């Protein structure tokens, strides 16, 4: 099996607020350059509940599917099938776990897996798996502060 991509960080808010921010306010923080339409004003929608659609609504009203919610367990677990900019048949899986920490903090663990079904790119992904994840967030955090 191909190891999932994993990323973890802490956020200074409650799991409730973290879950709500992820699912209800993605439009405000999702990087606009990582939408399909690349348009400012594109809205990102997570329909609440298992089976809910995840999609981007362009300013022109077009809806572009990004995935489907597989597990909706607020404020602890959110998982979804993810096929932004690819065929639904090539979907991977994203799971996000929000864990309450002391001092009103939350640990966010993101796991992006399901690469096995993508076939021939598998080996390269496996080989490259250990590079890349460590330190990604700290460097971005620093960039954001400076």
């Amino acid at each position, binding site marked *: 099996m191909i190891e999932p*991509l994993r*990323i973890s*960080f802490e*956020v*200074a*808010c*409650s799991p*409730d*607020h*973290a879950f*709500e*921010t*992820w699912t*209800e*306010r993605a439009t*405000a*923080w*999702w*990087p606009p*350059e*990582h939408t399909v339409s*690349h348009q400012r004003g594109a809205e990102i929608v997570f329909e609440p509940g298992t089976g809910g659609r995840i999609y981007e609504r362009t300013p022109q009203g077009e809806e572009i599917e990004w995935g489907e919610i597989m597990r909706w367990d607020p404020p602890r677990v959110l998982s979804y099938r993810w096929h932004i*900019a*690819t065929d639904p048949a*090539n979907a991977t899986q994203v799971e996000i776990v929000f864990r309450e920490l002391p001092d009103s903090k939350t640990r*966010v663990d*993101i796991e*992006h897996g399901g690469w096995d079904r*993508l*076939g*021939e*790119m598998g080996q*390269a*992904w496996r*080989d*490259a*798996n250990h*590079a*890349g*994840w460590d330190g*990604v*967030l700290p*460097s*971005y*955090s620093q960039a*954001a502060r400076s």
Partner: protein
Amino acid sequence: MKTKRRIADPFDALGNQYRRDIVELLARKPRSVQEIADHLPISRPAVSRHLSVLNRAGLVSDEQIGARRLYRLDEPGAEAARRYLAQVWGNVGVRFKIFAENTKPRKR
């Protein structure tokens, strides 16, 4: 697409949104120019020009299979794509964190 003499910098090559999109598309499976163009709001000639840049950067190679010419990520390119995806998640995480920490819960 055979010559790799004029090497482009992979970092520069990935500085264009459509080329990043193409790398993401090819990370899933090899595709023809038409198949790439079907996923992007740009023309086939534009896709070909982007593929040429990605090829010079050592990220993408091509192969004739029957009547079809398929483009695929080179091995180092696959690593680049993976690193790119890691950066996307890093970017997503940081933006999420900053936003969540600077907003108040709506309810209660």
